[in-house]
């Protein structure tokens, strides 16, 4: 009964269909990696053009918010991995719990990020808003990059949370011993995590020693 995965066109075998789903997700992740690659290319160019200014601007970041968020997101990735193991081990209930905790940690991440944005807004550090009064021109440029990068990441995070919630709500996904859907959703969540793991040093740690 647990093996009731729907076989859909054009596949004849469940195994082949699973491989195709996994490959499809991996190819999509490759595409997503290139999307954020553009952001990292911009960060690299700005740092090469203005090495000192970049470090100075980065030192204005809220380091503790960023560090805490890194820990939160890494933990939520662990939860997603545990959900896959639980589904494979035949305990759908634990798979569901692990998925919901990953979603909860994602929400916590957004909460911390929101608090950070709010503090920056009060300081007038968010560019483009009426009260913005950033020190140097480069600091404003850095904040533009920061907003674009973390904003794009947050959108992906929200998308990942929706996917996690869908997997958690679908009984058939939790009961699937091959963890096809949960496995692919977890892969996506790991990418969201991984992008942050690179954004954190790029934006926060670059100026942390100052």
């Amino acid at each position, binding site marked *: 009964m647990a*093996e*009731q*995965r*729907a*076989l*859909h*066109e*054009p*596949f*004849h075998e*469940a195994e*082949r269909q699973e*491989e*195709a789903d996994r*490959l*499809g997700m991996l*190819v*999509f992740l*490759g*595409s*997503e990696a*290139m*999307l*954020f*690659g*553009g*952001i990292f*290319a*911009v960060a690299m*160019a*700005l740092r090469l*053009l*203005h090495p000192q*200014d970049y470090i100075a601007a980065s030192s204005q970041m809220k380091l503790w918010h960023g560090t805490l968020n890194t820990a939160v997101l890494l933990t939520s990735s662990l939860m997603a991995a545990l959900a896959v193991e639980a589904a494979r081990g035949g305990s759908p209930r634990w798979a569901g719990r692990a998925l919901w905790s990953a979603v909860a940690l994602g929400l916590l991440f957004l909460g911390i990020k929101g608090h950070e944005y709010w503090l920056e807004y009060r300081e007038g550090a968010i*560019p*483009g808003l009426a009260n913005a009064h950033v020190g140097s*021109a*480069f600091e*404003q*440029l850095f*904040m*533009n*990059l920061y*907003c*674009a990068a973390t904003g*794009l990441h947050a959108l992906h995070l929200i998308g990942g949370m929706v996917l996690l919630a869908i997997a958690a709500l679908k009984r058939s996904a939790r009961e699937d011993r091959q963890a096809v859907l949960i496995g692919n959703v977890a892969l996506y969540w790991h990418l969201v995590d991984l992008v942050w793991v690179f954004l954190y040093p790029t934006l926060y740690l670059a100026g942390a020693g100052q």
Partner: protein
Amino acid sequence: MIAAAIDVEREPEDVEHTSYLRAGYSLRSWFFTTDHKRIAILYLFSISFFFAIGGVAAALIRLDLLTPAPDLLSNEGYNRAFSLHGIIMVWFFLIPSIPNTFGNFLIPLMIGARDLAFPRLNLLSWYIYIFAGLLTLAVVLGGGVDTGWTFYTPLTTMYANGMVVMTVIAVFISGFSTILTGLNFIVTIHKLRAPGMTWGRLPLFVWSHYAVSLIFVLATPVLAVTLLLVAAERLFGIGVFDPSLGGDPLLFQHLFWFYSHPAVYIMVLPAMGVMSELITSAAHKQIFGYWFVAFASLAIAVIGFLVWGHHMFVSGQSIYASAVFSFLSLAVAVPSAIKVYNWTATLYKGDIDLSAPLLFAMGFIVLFVAGGLTGLMLAMLAIDVHVHDTYFVVAHFHYIMVGGTVTAFFGALHYWWPKITGRMYHEGLARIAAITILVGFNLTFFPQFVLGYRGMPRRYHVYPEEFQVLHVLSSAGAGLLAFGYLMPLFYLVWSLFRGSLAPANPWGATGLEWTTSSPPPKHNFTEQPVVERGPYHYPLKHPASRGHG
């Protein structure tokens, strides 16, 4: 799982044999279809529509250029006309043209599969394309943009007029359609090949679509993020390219061309795949050097990612970077040349059938060689400084994109028309159209090489009187070319009603798509095909198979 499998097998016999065109007549059966063949038809109609819109913009440009004075369009109007021409032709015609119509239709047939790996995703990508296309039409109706198709900053972010953000978002959205199609092709080619269909037995059309899918998936997201950054700067004022803050507009160009040069290979690689099929079928011969042609596609895809800097030789990038980009741009010509030599060698001593598809293929070779060799000239630093941003460049890339891709598109349309529709077209008219297109094309664009070499800059509609003769020749050629493109519209549509019924294999070609009926049944094959030999195993043992079906 078992229940689903039985369900498929239980379908009555006649359903298995009914052609995909007769498997339902309602609008719903078309607009909610997941059949890759029907989705290909949806794409064929929509890209033809955008080809026509882009063509109207081109006609306005060529009419305005008939005289040295700005008669027809204002300066602003001219800028908007060439911007729309570029944007629509690149993203709404050329990039989806061959992959989304013929690739969609043929890849499952060629590898012996029932459909693409993700049929619903395939339909979704069409809807995304249509949504992006409607946004672009809204831009056209709203007056257009004057950014050029390249959206250079800070022109686009600070100074350009018109519906810039909407255009940028439309192109951004169309990228998702491209990425999903590429993803679908890659997974399909990996996971749905018929028993016996090894990588070494894949038709070269499939190889080139595999290469193009890699570019779809890896290059398009870079354009996406770049356009997002442009839109963010224009909408919210958070620009990362803003020179007044210390940002680097050249950075935009790097990111843009990192996508847009591979995009040229997106346009030409599928055309090369079409060529390999047309040539082998017309020569009734095994392709010369199968693995060279197959790996040349991958080599073009890989090296194509490393040549973007040749668009920026005069933008102030480091001379050392320019030298490396120049070398790599010369290197990427090698795999393209390998293909041309191998097609020619395939024709040598072949049993040649000089039909319309081969005429289009020969036209492709002539125009592609001319476009490719002038590309080598442009890849050289010294010459590029002389002809940069002149009509020489315009002529060069039109030889590749229009002379190459559009000619191959028409070749493919004729070659697979019997398979797609089940009807034969009028061969004589098709040959006349092929020759008209070749002559019209050269008359349009060859004078532009001369114009550019003599100093006529791109994107200007006022020019010295000594250039008028060449401009008039070019505009006259454009008229002939438009006539050539319109001809198939009439005789192909006519063939739908009056054309003779097509047999399964009208050309005596190898390839799995010719083993099923014309048009194919909904599930492509009545029995699962098993492949026992390579894709171009000529001569066929039974040439009489032409009449079979």
